[in-house]
């Protein structure tokens, strides 16, 4: 039986109340309410109303609103009360199974590396090493540990192979190509949107609506759109309204306001207890050495350090990612992620649950390119604990979906299928041609989407794209952009005769302007 609206709403309310009850916001509100009793405007006969008014005028109600809004954004709507918790993670059984097998493979790979190199998963650092690391904390990039024996646990292309082999056992999927099979690489029948639906969802990107990334170009006088948009942005920040900010950034963030707007949407305020928490994570890093640390080092050295613009932020990346690995609060996101954190047991206590720990402590094993999720944020945030919190929130809201197998509309499987379907439907000749020459489009665009285009676009363009991810609380725009890029370079792509040549045409995206591409693809292409 379908859940009716009222029960659904009360379930949601109950869940949010429960989550906020233990939070620091709750204790702050209590404290504020208690303090307000001393105020003359609070009268005993109308105590409840007066306190409520006080909380409204002092801005605390807005903070509560923002927290509730944040919860609504992050957690999916509850399913049927009788549904088991796995359904919140992933409702489809075959997807859950596939994710489980994938996780087993990753663990196997990690364990064999461990045994080969005889390095423990975790060990306590000797005091001298702790001291050295503390001194070097702001310049860990100068360290040159020998990382030659380490390899990334997996790369995006390995993950693509797994996704290509996904099958729904309830779906007739003969090996012979037929009208039932998809022409692309993804062979599961998930529901994805078509252009009319996308136009509705992304209506603020329409041709007659001002956008940053288009209407702030040098030729357009700022009185036309930009000045007013900046003014509204300042107002949104003054009001400290998360929901308004989320609506606002759909048209793009002015550079000077972006850091604050993103923090408002993600509900990050960098309170003293947050800074303390970060410092605690830092001391965990100092005290214990984890095997994944070497994977992180290797990844940063291979990817971000070699990037023309992100190399400067190398040290920040270590400061964020090493702490991230040790942050057990990240484990919370596994309630709504299809993934499950790997479990490890204290030596000699295999199978005994009291001695089980998650490894790494945050349950997330980094893969090749992982550090690129953090690098663009370094452009906006410089204070380590704030940078850290922003990244963590971005991860548990968005990025985790890009490397786990699920049926969620923003999950990587859906994004791949959306990309392939858009291309097939609107550029059938191109799609067919590329398929014929052995250059399945997804093979090229997959890495863009897994990394949310970080490292492929120019930084200012990337940030405009991520504005919209936050604004629409969805990653679908990544698939739309990928299709738009192919559409843009269609003429050249029609002339290539091999996968390598197709890769070459699409190798350099650094000159692309994201917003015009999206607008043209969604709103100016004949459907």
């Amino acid at each position, binding site marked *: 039986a379908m859940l009716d609206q009222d029960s659904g709403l009360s379930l949601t309310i109950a869940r949010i109340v429960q989550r906020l009850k233990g939070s620091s916001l709750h204790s702050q509100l209590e404290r504020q309410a208690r303090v307000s009793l001393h105020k003359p405007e609070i009268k005993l006969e109308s105590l409840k109303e007066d306190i409520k008014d006080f909380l409204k005028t002092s801005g605390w109600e807005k903070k509560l609103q923002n927290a509730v809004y944040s919860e609504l954004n992050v957690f999916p709507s509850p399913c049927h009360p009788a549904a088991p918790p796995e359904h919140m993670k992933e409702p489809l059984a075959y997807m859950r199974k596939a994710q489980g097998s994938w996780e087993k493979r990753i663990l196997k790979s990690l364990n064999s590396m461990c045994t080969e190199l005889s390095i423990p998963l975790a060990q306590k650092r000797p005091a001298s090493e702790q001291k050295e690391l503390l001194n070097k904390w702001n310049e860990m990039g*100068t360290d040159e540990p020998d990382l030659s024996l380490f390899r990334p646990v997996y790369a995006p292309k390995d993950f693509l192979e797994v996704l290509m082999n996904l099958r729904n056992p309830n779906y007739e999927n003969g090996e012979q190509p037929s009208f039932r099979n998809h022409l692309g690489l993804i062979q599961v029948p998930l529901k994805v949107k078509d252009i009319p639906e996308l136009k509705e969802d992304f209506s603020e990107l329409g041709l007659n609506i001002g956008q940053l990334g288009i209407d702030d170009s040098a030729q357009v006088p700022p009185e036309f759109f930009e000045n007013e948009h900046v003014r509204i942005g300042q107002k949104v920040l003054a009001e400290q309204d998360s929901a308004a900010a989320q609506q606002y950034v759909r048209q793009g963030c002015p550079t*000077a306001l*972006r*850091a604050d707007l993103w923090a408002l949407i993600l509900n990050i305020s960098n309170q003293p207890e947050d800074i303390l928490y970060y410092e605690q994570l830092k001391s965990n890093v100092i005290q214990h050495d984890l095997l994944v640390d070497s994977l992180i080092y290797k990844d940063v050295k291979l990817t971000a350090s070699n990037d023309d*613009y992100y190399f*400067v932020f190398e*040290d920040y990346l270590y400061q964020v990612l090493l702490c991230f690995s040790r942050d057990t609060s990240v484990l919370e996101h596994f309630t709504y992620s299809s993934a499950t954190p790997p479990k490890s047991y204290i030596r000699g206590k295999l199978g005994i649950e009291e001695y089980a720990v998650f490894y790494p402590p945050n349950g997330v094993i980094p893969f090749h390119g992982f550090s690129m999720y953090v690098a663009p944020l370094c*452009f906006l945030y410089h204070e380590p604990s704030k940078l850290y919190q922003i990244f963590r929130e971005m991860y548990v809201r968005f990025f985790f979906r890009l490397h786990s197998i699920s049926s969620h509309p923003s999950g990587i499987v859906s994004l791949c299928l959306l990309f392939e379907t858009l291309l097939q439907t609107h550029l059938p000749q191109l799609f067919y041609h590329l398929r014929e020459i052995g250059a399945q489009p997804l093979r090229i665009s997959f890495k863009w989407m897994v990394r949310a285009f970080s490292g492929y676009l120019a930084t*200012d363009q990337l940030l405009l794209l991520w504005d919209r991810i936050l604004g629409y609380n969805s990653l679908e725009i990544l698939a739309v952009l990928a299709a738009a890029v192919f559409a843009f370079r269609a003429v050249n792509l029609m002339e290539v005769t091999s996968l390598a040549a197709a890769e070459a045409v699409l190798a350099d995206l650094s000159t692309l302007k994201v917003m015009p591409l999206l607008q043209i693809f969604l709103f100016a292409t004949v459907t």
Partner: protein
Amino acid sequence: APLPPPPSSGRPRACVRFKCGLSGPVLDVLRCRPGWQQARDEEEWDFFWCDVSWLRENFDHTYMEDHVRICHFRNHYELSRKNYLVKNLKRFRRQLEREAGKLEAAKCDFFPKTFEMPSEYRLFVEEFRKKPGVTWIMKPVGRSQGKGIFLFRKLKDIVDWKKSDNRVPYSGSFPMDTLSGIWLPEKLSVFSPSFPYTTLKGVTAYEQKDETQIETYVAQQYIENPYLIGGRKFDLRVYILVTSYIPLKAWLYRDGFARFSNTRFTLNSIDDHYVHLTNVAVQKTAPDYDPEKGCKWMIQQLRQHLTAKHGAGAVAVLFADMDNIFIKSLQSVQKVIISDKHCFELYGYDILIDRDLKPWLLEINASPSLAASSQEDYELKCHLLKDTLHIVDMEGRLSGKEKRVGGFDLIWNDGPVSRGGNLGDPVTGNFVANTHLGCFNDRKKQLRELFGSLPA
């Protein structure tokens, strides 16, 4: 064969014969320019991209027709040699103070306190004693690429330096004031080979002859609070093109780059040459230098990053302060540079930004490096040079009223140039400077509009 007619007659040049003293992007750009041909060895030329040593040896006895152009001013070293620059700036500052008061003169305070050595050593010691604990940097005036530079905090360090072999030796003796450990010069005579400097004005003529023999240094206050990005120090390279000093006409290129030190900034490692010098040439020899990495950002990137961090207002002030540096430095040598209609010059300005977002002038290069360290760099330099040649305008295509040519914006035309409108129009409303450093550079489009179908 008759000489091609000069551009002032209004007829386009048939063929421009060029000579080029360098290889790389300059030569490539000259060779590709339509209607330009490389002059054969003994042939006469209309355009010469020369190096400064040729200039020094030949300029004075080379006859040039009216239309001929050459890429240096005879005495460019008034800007490019650190000791001359500081002399000119100090003199200009004094003049400004006399004419316009202290506030106006304070706008010249973009050059860190500098003293010529050894001639101004007493003044230096006075300043040194006023500010104990401050770090100073010693730089040879004539060398480039970071050679011969070191930092010091104690006078004792200079004494050690003097004794070491690294310096080109002074052949005289240095009596020491053993109590305070500072040098004392002997009584100087104008013709002493050891001490080229006296308190007289005969400095200029003397130094020219003996450039290779005598090494003059400047001691400069080291900027201890540079703006850091990712914990690294950086400086800016900006390009300014001057086509005339009297009247002063100067153009600012929109592109440029920020050069990062490869290692993290800390004052503890004064001996670490590599940390403090951001010249790419020095960085290339640092042990962890990875040429594939590239340690440069385009100025556009820097401008965006600073805007994200400090807001557009603060960044606008910073860039306006940089405009002030360009203009004042050129004004300070306006009456000193030998004005010659044949000459133009492309300068590379090195600017350092401190943590208060104040820009400092480090030095001015009259022969900025035009070698390319990457594909992106090669393109930048080619575009820069092409636009330079458009402005020099051997082809006679410009009307002289342009405020923008390709990536160059006219920033001074015997007076400030405002954005928008035509050159020479009276300014209505607020004056906004016609500078776009670090802004969007759609040079191809602009050149198409300017020249029509002629190749860019």
